[in-house]
């Protein structure tokens, strides 16, 4: 199907009503711009709020501030310090990196074995894993919470990292990719005398790198943004992830506008790192979602 696409001439060139087309295209770009604007605008207002002076300024009733009364970049330092955001950042990085790395190794191994090894019970294992993909997380949340409490993990990182490390959708991502790799490549390595572990890490791993990179970015962002499970299991404030720091920002504070402005600064500081990662990796991310499965 995709081959035919390249053979054909773009359809617009054949159109004999060019004037209408220019008009249509302008209209399309206009509509898209409206969408992009609507999405960005609230964040712009949040940003403006984040640099308003925190002392001695009360917004006038009935006025939307499209521009701050003065630029107070020090709000960010204050917000990061008062919200303890650096601890949150450190915790989030520890959790996201460990989870993503451990689960990446597991999905690589399991995806490879399920795709390339012939053994009895393979179909049973595959189908059993497939079924768990359909089980919603909330069902597991309750009993895993009890399990994690029973194991006394609630004041350690283990509770945040370990329960979900066998990432079934990741397994099928790798498996789908390995299915498209011809067996001959792996058999050639076997003839060369490479052992199981060596052939896994020296042949399979480099082949899977594009898939793993996509998995890495997607999982990292998902971990960065998760708040529900950490909120449920983290009993220790020192282990709060950055999202939790944002949820509980200014708790016990006096409230008022100072808190509102600082909270905005905290929000922007929390969002900015993922935006940067996205800007750097957007090709992988957008391209990667294509691999991950829809024909």
């Amino acid at each position, binding site marked *: 199907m995709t081959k035919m696409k390249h053979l054909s001439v773009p359809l617009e060139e054949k159109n004999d009503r060019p004037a209408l087309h220019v008009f249509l295209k302008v209209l399309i770009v206009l509509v898209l711009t409206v969408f992009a604007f609507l999405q960005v605008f609230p964040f712009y207002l949040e940003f403006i709020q984040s640099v308003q002076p925190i002392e001695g300024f009360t917004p006038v009733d009935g006025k939307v501030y499209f521009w701050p009364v003065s630029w107070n970049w020090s709000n960010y330092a204050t917000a990061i310090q008062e919200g303890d955001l650096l601890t949150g950042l450190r915790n989030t990085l520890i959790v996201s990196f460990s989870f993503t790395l451990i689960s990446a190794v597991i999905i690589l191994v399991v995806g490879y074995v399920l795709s390339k*090894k012939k053994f009895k019970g393979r179909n049973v294992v595959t189908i059993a894993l497939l079924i768990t993909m359909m089980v919603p997380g909330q069902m597991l949340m309750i009993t895993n919470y009890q399990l994690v409490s029973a194991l006394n993990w609630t004041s350690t990182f283990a509770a945040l990292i370990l329960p979900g490390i066998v990432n079934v959708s990741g397994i099928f991502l790798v498996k789908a990719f390995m299915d498209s790799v011809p067996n001959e490549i792996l058999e050639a390595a076997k003839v060369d005398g490479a052992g199981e572990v060596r052939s896994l890490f020296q042949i399979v791993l480099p082949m899977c790198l594009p898939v793993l990179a996509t998995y890495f970015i997607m999982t990292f962002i998902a971990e960065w943004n998760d708040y529900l499970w950490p909120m449920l299991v983290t009993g220790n404030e020192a282990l709060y992830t950055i999202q939790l720091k944002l949820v509980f920002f200014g708790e016990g504070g006096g409230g008022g506008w100072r808190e509102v402005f600082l909270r905005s600064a905290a929000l922007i500081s929390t969002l900015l790192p993922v935006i940067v990662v996205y800007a750097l990796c957007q090709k992988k991310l957008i391209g990667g979602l294509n691999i991950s499965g829809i024909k």
Partner: protein
Amino acid sequence: MNDSTLALAQRKKRKTKWFTHEAITAYLWLLFPLAWWGVFFLFAFVRGFVFSFTNLTISISKISRFTFEQYTRLFADDVFWTAFRNTIIWTLVMTALNNGLGLFVAYLISRIHHGQKAWLTLLFWPTLVSAVISSQITTLVFNPSDTGIMNQIIAAFGGKPLAWYNDPNLSLFTLMIIPALLGFSSQMLIYYVAIEGIPKSYVEAAIMDGASTWQIFEHIYVPSINSAILYNCLLSIIGGLQVIGPMQLITNGGPSNSSMSITLYMYNALIGGENGYACAIAVATLNVIMLLSILQIWLQHRISRSEEAL
């Protein structure tokens, strides 16, 4: 030899052995992942199911007896039914909006020639926005006080300020707006990829035949991307049925449970120490989600079979 013994004989022939070298290495590799999965998925799942038939609370550490009381309580619980209704409304509206907007925007992007990738990048970033952040955006824009952005816009046009999420009649609707605005990006991308896969020659042939834009959309685009539509809708429905973020972070289900969702109700039951009841809520909703997933797989299978038949 009759048919069944023949089949049996054939099966015996095809039978692979359990303890081949390859099988042993395979199971050695799988040992740890499967054991872990067994504890945190399989065991957790079965336990939750079992707990829903017990009177387990945080104070009763040992399960005492088998009982249906959690379920009878559930079906008589008005708050649960409010949560159920809200969750269904949320799911239907969000599925329609996410997919409608996603498909609309993807279609628009596919119709322009230059800068398609740039537009995708520009409209895809909201997937990075966490539930916590989008909830804070909602409280900025729809703040019930006079200083809320929306209320100020209303005031500028001479209207009366609204209580938004503090108004029982408006709360659920208010919580939907920002997630709907920021939530269609991943659907958009999947629809875009699907639309790009449609052979241009189909569209050209239709134009030659004098088909209108809508006819082309209805008769060429929609049938060509129906598996993407199915996949996206299912994902939206599963996500929607599990919604908790905006409700938990903005209104905590209030005012007077008008924005309660099933997952939030379950979460609160769990936090309140009523573990058995929380499990019953989870099982009751879980069945819906699993049925939907199975339905989707079945439909997908049928679609791919009818495509093969063509």
